[in-house]
């Protein structure tokens, strides 16, 4: 990608992220609630609460707090978590791998399976296959992930013993090396599957509709007329409709993150989603702001990757 594009991109992204930072700060502080309640405990006296407020700079005027925060972020310092008593960057970094693993697995799973299923259903060229996929996709798309998670636990984990109920590893026998990897995969299977279902259904429906339209176009008729095998025909068609599909998948990375919160709670997956929830309840402002910053940067990054994928998928798209 040419450097001019990169420069333009930076000029767009940096002000966006900075604006989001200020907006996040204001929204969080405008919301009712007081972090001192969670920190000071139930039996604290007024002096103790004043002490906590002063300690975390919560007694300063809001513009001062914003200014200090922004200056610290520019220096790469996200502050100290009220609850954890440690630098926010570390608190978030510890939880990031688990969430990335869960979300990327779900994203890959849903994209590959979604495209695959839709292609299969279209190639079968049977009305029944179409209808089955459509109905199943609609149902899967409409089912909330926390409920699907509970169902998966009751049917596939408890009783059958096929899958563990919670966590990322076996608590009794900590494994190492290849066994650790297998243990994590075993624990990952259910939550990733549950998280993938929503996205998978959306992708499948999108691809199916696109394919049906593409297969009715002139170039497909020509390809078929010159005797191209059906596999190659749908391959051609697929490549042409992937652009909107990639747009949708890229745009939904953020949504996967929010769906991850519920799935992480149900499966006790030690990721960022649960950190977000507990920080929200405790009004741990520094952690919340850090996570919002991360999430907004993540969405921006997903958009960039979508752009790159565009150029790769469609030779007509060129960035300068």
């Amino acid at each position, binding site marked *: 990608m040419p450097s001019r594009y990169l420069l333009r991109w930076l000029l767009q992204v940096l002000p966006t992220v900075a604006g989001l930072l200020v907006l996040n700060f204001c929204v969080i502080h405008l919301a*009712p*609630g*007081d*972090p*001192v*309640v*969670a*920190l*000071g*405990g*139930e*039996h*604290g*006296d*007024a*002096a*103790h*609460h004043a*002490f906590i407020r002063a*300690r975390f700079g919560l007694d300063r005027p809001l513009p001062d707090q914003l200014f200090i925060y922004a200056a610290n972020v520019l220096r790469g310092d996200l502050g*100290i*978590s009220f*609850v*954890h*008593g*440690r630098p926010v960057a570390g*608190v978030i970094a*510890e*939880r990031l791998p*688990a969430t990335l693993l869960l979300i990327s697995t779900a994203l890959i799973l849903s994209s590959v399976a979604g495209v695959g299923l839709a292609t299969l259903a279209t190639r079968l060229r049977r009305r029944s296959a179409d209808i089955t996929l459509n109905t199943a996709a609609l149902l899967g798309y409409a089912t909330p992930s926390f409920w699907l998670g*509970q169902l998966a*636990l*009751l049917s596939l*984990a*408890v009783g059958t*013993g096929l899958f*563990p*109920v*919670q*966590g*990322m*590893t076996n*608590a*009794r026998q*900590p494994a190492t090396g290849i066994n650790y990897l297998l243990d994590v995969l075993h624990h990952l299977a259910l939550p990733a599957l549950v998280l993938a279902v929503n996205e998978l259904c959306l992708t499948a429906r999108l691809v199916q509709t696109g394919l049906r339209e593409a297969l009715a176009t002139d170039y497909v008729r020509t390809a078929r007329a010159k005797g191209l095998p059906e596999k190659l025909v749908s391959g051609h068609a697929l490549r042409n409709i992937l652009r909107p599909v990639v747009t949708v998948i890229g745009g939904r990375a953020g949504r996967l993150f929010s769906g991850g919160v519920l799935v992480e*709670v*149900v*499966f*006790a997956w*030690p*990721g960022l989603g*649960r*950190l977000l*929830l*507990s920080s929200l*309840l*405790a*009004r741990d402002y520094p952690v919340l702001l850090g996570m919002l910053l991360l999430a907004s940067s993540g969405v921006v990054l997903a958009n960039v990757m979508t752009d790159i994928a565009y150029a790769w998928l469609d030779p007509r798209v060129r960035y300068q």
Partner: protein
Amino acid sequence: MGAGGTRGGVKRLLASLVLFAMAGTCPMPTVGQDAPVRGGTLVVALVSDPGHLNPAITTSGATHAAAELLYNGLLGRDERGEPIPDLAESWQIEESGAVYRFRLRDGVKWHDGTSFTAADVKFTFENILLKFHARTRASMGTLLVGVDAPDDRTVVFRFKQPYAPLLYQLDATEAPIVPRHIYQGSDPQTNPANSSPIGTGAFRFVAYTKGAEIRLARNPTYFKKGLPYLDGLVMRIIPDLSVQVLALENGEVDFLWELRGPQQSRLTGDPRFRTAQTAYNPGGSNCIMTMSFNLERPILKELRVRRAMAHAVDRPPFVSQILFGEGKVATAPISSEIPWASAKGLNLPRFDRGEAERLLDSVGWKTEGEGPRTARGVAGVPDGTRLSIDLLHFPAFAKYGELMRQPLSAVGIGVVLKPLEPAVFAPTVFKDRNFDTNVISYCNGPDPEIGVRRMYHSSQIGPAPFTNAAAYRNPRVDGLFDDASRTVDRAGRSRLYRQIQEILVQDLPYYWLVETVSTRAWVARCGGFKPWTGLFAEAVFCKR
């Protein structure tokens, strides 16, 4: 529980439970045919990630549930909540309760091998607990003159005046002792040891994977000979209580801190599991679900209106429908789990709808057509005002709101329910005082001085959360509370608390609904649990 999540105090134990009474230093199996077995790992489910593992700088139930086994207090607590030796082997009360002298146990080592001495106790109180532990700071902060360490094995507490509750405030929940050599000269709230703690406890720290689990191992030099039996202990963070039950059934965890009513049916009657109820909780013990009346509001200033509301509400359904039988109807302002302080035979308003209607009529609240009553000559309220109040509660307590609204509307009191999450509830009620009534789980703590006084003393009216929500002011009650805190003799305190409770039942600044307890659950192959203390797993053993 005010904030978030706790109930506590000792209740009945199922007969099948193998109990260990801590008599002085030695663990003695008192019941049961099962001899303790050595080895094995216990997996405990925690509902929230503690964030850090220093119980001396916080009263957070999450940290205390996870970290108390790593530490000890000067004293422990037995199944009745009474003080027993822990780091201190004996104590004397001098100058009618203004001075307490403790003799420390010999040969106690920190997990890093350093010797534990009286200097650690002095440091912990002066530099950590009195600054950062909300309950200890609020209760003894202004009264404690100093902590002395005349020699390595003697600690002396000197108070301005006789101070009664001290012996109930020295366990690992109220006053865990942390090492001076680790915390000296550092900021205790950001010291790295908070995430890799050094204690004196039965288990030593191994690893803490944030958000996932905490791994502990047997402390081979624990000062209680022969303990612990387990080789290791893993705490798993599982935020959803129903998933905790599934994990227990699936054999992934062995012990749950809290089994809620609806899930009990899954486990009771199953021979693979045991349960026990307790009113103790690391975040707050002996809790009573309480309705507060904002006495600054003209409608509720009138005693007859408060009495009418108490008469209108039938309390047994709270136990059966919300608590699924775990807990009981409150019979006094002080929890029955503090038996010496809780008054018996008090005349709380009984359920009587007719009496409620008569009282409201007598005040001037008249029934005119449908809906809430209308003011006709009510003092301080303009004629034509409707009798409608709001009721604030945590979202988790929504069922209490529902069970209050229906009977109150039946006698012509309109109730608007306002669920507010804890971080919003506290400033709304205690700082802004913007409410008519609310429902709070007020935890009495191990001694009335800790959790009861704050509800009624006129010096405790906001802005700190979970203080005197009613804004109740009665100089006689203030005086009696002050006397009670200076009286060390228990019979004398008992008489003072009785007088206080008689006045409270007359004045009705609050209405006490139900006492709540928690149910712990564990696998039947393990025994030796002490659900009434934070050191619950000190003597646990598991058969393979």
